[in-house]
């Protein structure tokens, strides 16, 4: 993985000094809250419902074990003993004190980390496929290019006060595992006929109030032009993106307003002035960065069936089936540690679990971990022959729930329990649903199902692209939940369709149950929930869900625990 050189260290050190000074000026009253706001946001510091929340950048989700241990340390020293991994492959701490945030940054800097541009109206942390470098369907490892973009976008002087936040995702494989279609810029690696590496450039995707899938504005961008072309996009957006209404300020609205062709024309015109300038990547620079992402020193191992010696162990079999992914090197596998144990807010990990995951990484996976945008942790390079032992250990720490890609592997934002933007709670709903379907055989029978939930229209929980999407809404001061189906991420990205009027929190488990009943009744063999939903449309689901009244009274499981 990338390691800081003297320049990276210097920039991060100077950032801490700058930010420490800004905090001091805020406390001294030299900066008003209004003036401090964009400064702290550009450093990932939010004011939440109860306290400050600090979001730390995990560039493209890649972590060294010592960095994971630092999160455990921060959780213990500055927070309440846990952290929350996010859909942006970052981590956030929900209970930090403003005065201590510069010290947290100093601690982070000691392990080459920071909180730069994890929020605010600037280019955010670039995300990428969590299986980068190990997936068999990879055209090129996207991480060096994500790193190139990380450096370029860090404190970019021209794009620090954009109309709105700006998110970039890179995918290097045939299958899109980075949800590129719902990003402001989605890049996917391609090779041209000459075998040269480049990117297909998609712009204007996004969720939130106006969910739109991105549009391709360039089929092939040679990789050396990555920065100048991105700069051209950013300059057009910075100048012409709307600023009068924050809900219409994303680049997708500009694209919609002027049309994809016109937008692409403006970008090309801007780029004509930049193409080939000094920001064009040199072969040396690309090779320097790529050198940090060379494959590990893999052993020569035979490919084995990890289940062979444990044929009767159904629990292990379930875990292998759901949580273990193929690896391009024989004898190896990628393991997903589930942060979706029933009764735990999705994406949360305790300090003890973080230390433990760091240990696992050291012992089984070359000291590296990845954060997924589904809020789990990946150990990407595990020997197949060690899977059983790893499983036993992970299980003992509550990290081996065999539910990856299943109903209970929900993407879920922190919702109204933490977030001041939220209109409704999300964690208790997730808990109630998980409780209702806490039956592993049933979940495995249902198969691949992405349930994504957001507590407000900002869509941090990616509800629009959930096979089932749940959106918390406010109606006359009380919390309601709107349900959509048929959304999908990846190569077949789709925005889900709302099935009808919203439901109360208490009704939600039953609503999910009814949706599943329709699916079980109507599915063809091999058909996933989303396939059935897309094939049939919402009508049969809607009809059944609303056919008879759903009980609205009663206490919601999980309500007390997480209130």
């Amino acid at each position: 993985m990338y390691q800081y050189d003297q320049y990276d260290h210097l920039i991060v050190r100077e950032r801490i000094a700058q930010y420490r000074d800004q905090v001091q000026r805020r406390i001294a009253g030299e900066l008003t809250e209004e003036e401090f706001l964009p400064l702290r946001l550009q450093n990932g510091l939010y004011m939440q419902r109860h306290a400050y929340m600090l979001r730390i950048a995990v560039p493209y989700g890649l972590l060294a074990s010592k960095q994971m241990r630092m999160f455990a340390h921060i959780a213990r020293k500055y927070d309440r003993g846990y952290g929350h991994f996010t859909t942006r492959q970052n981590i956030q701490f929900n209970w930090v004190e403003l005065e201590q945030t510069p010290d947290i940054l100093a601690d982070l800097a000691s392990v080459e980390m920071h909180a730069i541009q994890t929020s605010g109206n600037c280019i955010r942390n670039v995300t990428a496929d969590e299986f980068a470098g190990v997936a068999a369907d990879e055209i090129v490892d996207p991480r060096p290019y994500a790193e190139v973009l990380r450096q370029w976008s860090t404190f970019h002087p021209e794009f620090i006060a954009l109309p709105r936040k700006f998110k970039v995702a890179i995918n290097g494989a045939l299958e899109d595992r980075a949800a590129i279609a719902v990003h402001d810029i989605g890049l996917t690696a391609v090779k041209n006929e000459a075998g040269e590496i480049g990117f297909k450039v998609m712009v204007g995707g996004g969720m939130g109030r106006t969910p739109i899938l991105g549009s391709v504005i360039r089929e092939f961008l040679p990789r050396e032009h990555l920065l100048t072309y991105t700069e051209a996009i950013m300059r057009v957006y910075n100048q012409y993106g709307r600023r009068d209404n924050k809900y219409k300020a994303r680049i997708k609205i500009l694209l919609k307003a002027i049309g994809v062709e016109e937008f692409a024309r403006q970008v090309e015109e801007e780029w004509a002035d930049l193409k080939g300038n000094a920001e064009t990547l040199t072969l040396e620079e690309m090779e320097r960065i790529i050198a940090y992402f060379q494959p590990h020193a893999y052993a020569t191992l035979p490919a084995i069936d990890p289940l062979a010696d444990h044929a009767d162990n159904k629990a292990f079999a379930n875990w292998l089936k759901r949580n273990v992914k193929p690896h391009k090197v024989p004898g190896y596998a990628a393991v997903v540690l589930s942060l979706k144990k029933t009764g735990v807010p999705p994406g949360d990990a305790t300090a003890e679990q973080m230390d433990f995951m760091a240990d696992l990484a050291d012992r089984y996976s070359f000291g590296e971990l990845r954060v997924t945008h589904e809020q789990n942790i990946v150990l990407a390079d595990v020997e197949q022959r060690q899977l059983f032992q790893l499983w036993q250990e992970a299980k003992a720490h509550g990290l081996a729930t065999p539910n990856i890609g299943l109903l209970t592997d929900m993407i879920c934002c922190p919702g109204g329990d933490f977030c001041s933007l939220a209109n409704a709670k999300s964690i208790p709903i997730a808990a109630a649903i998980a409780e209702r379907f806490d039956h592993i055989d049933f979940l495995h029978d249902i198969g691949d199902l992405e349930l994504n939930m957001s507590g407000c229209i900002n869509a941090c929980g990616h509800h629009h692209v959930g096979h089932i999407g749940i959106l918390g809404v406010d109606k006359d001061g009380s919390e309601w939940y709107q349900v959509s189906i048929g959304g999908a991420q990846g190569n077949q990205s789709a925005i889900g369709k709302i099935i009808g009027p919203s439901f109360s929190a208490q009704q939600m488990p039953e609503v999910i149950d009814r949706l599943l009943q329709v699916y079980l009744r109507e599915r063809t063999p091999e058909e996933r929930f989303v396939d059935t939903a897309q094939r049939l449309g919402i009508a049969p689901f809607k009809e059944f869900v609303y056919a008879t009244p759903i009980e609205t009274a009663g206490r919601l499981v999980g309500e007390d625990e997480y209130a």
Partner: protein
Amino acid sequence: MPDQTNRIIKGREIVADDWTVLRPAEGEDAATIAVPDGKVIVPLATWQAQKDTLSTRPAIGVWLASSERPEELKGELDKFAVVAVDFPKFTDGRGYSIAYNLRMRLAYTGELRAIGDVLRDQLFQMKRCGFDAYATRPDRSIEDALKGLTVFSETYQASVDDQRPLFRRHARVATAAEHKDVGAGI
């Protein structure tokens, strides 16, 4: 508190300034608004409407609103002693791109001044985008604002101030030893 309305930061120094920025009241007509004597920075619309008379004056400047295009001044930039860009709000970042285009696309080499909601924490990026003068907000200490220009000693990306990105300014070498450290999990 000393009167700061006639002081600006120029380069890296605080200097006296005798320019006036003409800000028309709402509804005032660009063609008929009276431009006072002396050194005046007029709005783009006023320049365009009164070009014939204004261009005979020995010292005239023009300012652009953040929604205006610098290309409007193409071919005329040598007529101005000052070009200013207004930041209606410090969170409005359009002025950075305007400055970039004035310098890089239109090759403007004269004084480029940031006016409006100009605060200490914006100065570093303003400088990088090509500004060399800053009329900082008068309710804040200009001495304090000066510190904003020297926040970072290195930057990754190219901009107007240095058109070479870090990787072209310095040899950045990835060593094998550095790389191998990581897997050990130290």
